[in-house]
């Protein structure tokens, strides 16, 4: 999987140069190579097309064709363009209200519960009084899982094992937080597919009821072409504030990050890169751009 894009492009250009004539058509061929690399990195097909159209324009404007190593320059342009698309400034989450509420959402197994623990740990270290609310009433041992994490980081977990109403549990958690001097409540929810109407309704009601100061969409960085469908539907139903990319400690190229950012235009706020409670980091667009390009 170590296809060095810049090498490939240089080679492509060499062939073109060998043919003596370099035209706009030739650039198109090379740009196709970039598009394939992006799709191989799991950037959505349509998004990849948009990106490369823009790169092509940039390339023609910047005289790539007469430069010494056009491949390298083209990769540089691509990298800049990707970083730009992923948002140039870092955006933090908003923690407002008393208590401030943070709603966590996403597909099954994306890493929500683990991330809830990590975020709680981070906020605790920043001096906040954090409460974790266990609102996944479906997955076997979901509450136990959150409790184990809570114990590890020394953060209290609010749970009602016999209550089958996530909204009520969340409301009770907030009341409990108020009564017990907590400043932030992080609401862990069950994983759900965008096509599951009942479950999507549940998360929408959670949002309407709690009016969280921050709603996060947690997504596995290994996600493929479907990332756009999922992100779009979650965004339509939740109008979330930011994205969390998980499992970046693997070797995925993470093209989903670009696709999601492009489709919903919401910032990526955190990355998660490990199972331990301190494996949480801010998002750096230029690092992500390099990663997608396999650099």
């Amino acid at each position, binding site marked *: 999987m170590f296809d060095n894009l810049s090498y490939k492009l240089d080679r492509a250009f060499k062939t073109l140069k060998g043919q003596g004539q370099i035209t706009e058509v030739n650039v198109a061929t090379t740009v196709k190579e970039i598009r394939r690399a992006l799709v191989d990195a799991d950037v959505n097909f349509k998004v990849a097309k948009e990106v490369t159209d823009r790169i092509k324009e940039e390339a023609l404007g910047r005289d790539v064709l007469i430069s010494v190593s056009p491949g390298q320059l083209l990769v540089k342009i691509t990298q800049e363009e990707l970083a730009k698309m992923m948002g140039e400034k870092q955006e933090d989450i908003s923690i407002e209200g008393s208590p401030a509420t943070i709603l966590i959402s996403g597909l099954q197994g994306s890493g929500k519960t683990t991330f809830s623990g990590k975020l709680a740990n981070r906020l605790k270290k920043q001096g906040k009084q954090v409460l974790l609310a266990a609102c996944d009433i479906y997955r076997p041992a979901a509450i*136990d899982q959150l409790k184990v994490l809570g114990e*590890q980081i020394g953060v209290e977990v609010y749970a009602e094992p016999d209550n089958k109403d996530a909204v009520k549990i969340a409301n009770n958690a907030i009341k409990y937080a108020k009564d017990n001097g907590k400043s932030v409540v992080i609401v862990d929810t069950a994983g759900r597919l965008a096509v599951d109407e009942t479950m999507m309704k549940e998360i929408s009601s959670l949002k309407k009821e709690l009016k969280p100061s921050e709603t996060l969409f947690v997504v596995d960085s290994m996600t*493929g072409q479907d990332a756009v469908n999922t992100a779009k539907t979650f965004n339509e139903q939740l109008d979330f504030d930011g994205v969390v990319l998980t499992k970046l400690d693997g070797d995925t190229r993470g093209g989903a990050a670009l696709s999601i950012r492009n489709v919903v235009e919401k910032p990526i706020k955190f990355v998660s890169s490990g199972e331990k409670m301190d494996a949480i980091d801010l998002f750096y667009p230029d690092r992500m751009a390099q990663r997608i390009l396999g650099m």
Partner: protein
Amino acid sequence: VGKSQVDEDVLDELEEILISSDLGVNTTVKIIDRIEERVARDKYLGTSELDKILREEIAGLLSENNTEDLKDFSLPEDIKKPYVLLVVGVNGVGKTTTIGKLAAQYKKQGMKVILGAADTFRAAAVDQLKMWGERVDVPVVSHGMNTDPASVAFDAVKQGVEEEADIVIIDTAGRLHTKVNLMNELSKIKRVIQKFVNEAPHEVLLVLDGSTGQNAMIQAREFTKATEVTALAITKLDGTAKGGVVIGISEEFKIPVKYIGVGEKVEDLQVFNKMEFVDSFFKRV
């Protein structure tokens, strides 16, 4: 496909469908090339014939490991019991859930099933498997959290032999294939259970998340290196993700896809059907 004859536009549309189903560039190009060859050979190729040919070509890739689709959840007959099934994969793909569902299927056939809770690492992983055990009414062998996974696996197999179980299914912790130590642990689990039953594990099932993109290809490569993967399961196909990456995987590593997960409930597991799988790429959502 609204046109009657296969031309450039039709092939472009086809390419988009295949890429959008996560087949990846290589496999997609391979399929398109094969179709182009047929178009060149058969002078006239209508789009209605294209559907048929396409299904043949894709299913052909899935068959290059020469295995038939399973008909049901039965176990091979000619094996000395217990049949040992080791379940592996990266984090959160659906290993534990798939085990619960499989256990239910075997139990339904009147088999004696034992589960081994060898994920001793992830928070409450043992509790999760135990809850599945209760739900489907099969015993779970466990030593609790933070114990040695290989020794749990050993004890599960031992209990399977002693109690003449039909099948022992061992859950393992999710691990990214980039973590060398954790990958080595899989070989250790295998070695340890072989001390007890020589030919175990009879099956190593690699579980892949159907919404994963091209990284699944690397997962397959690395897990195959660490332990002998003999079957694949693809989960979460009840959403809009298509799981097409397994076509390239199945072809390259000659590992058959055996099961698909289509939900979170006990009954949401199916044996893999090539044709239905291929058809799902072309269903409009």
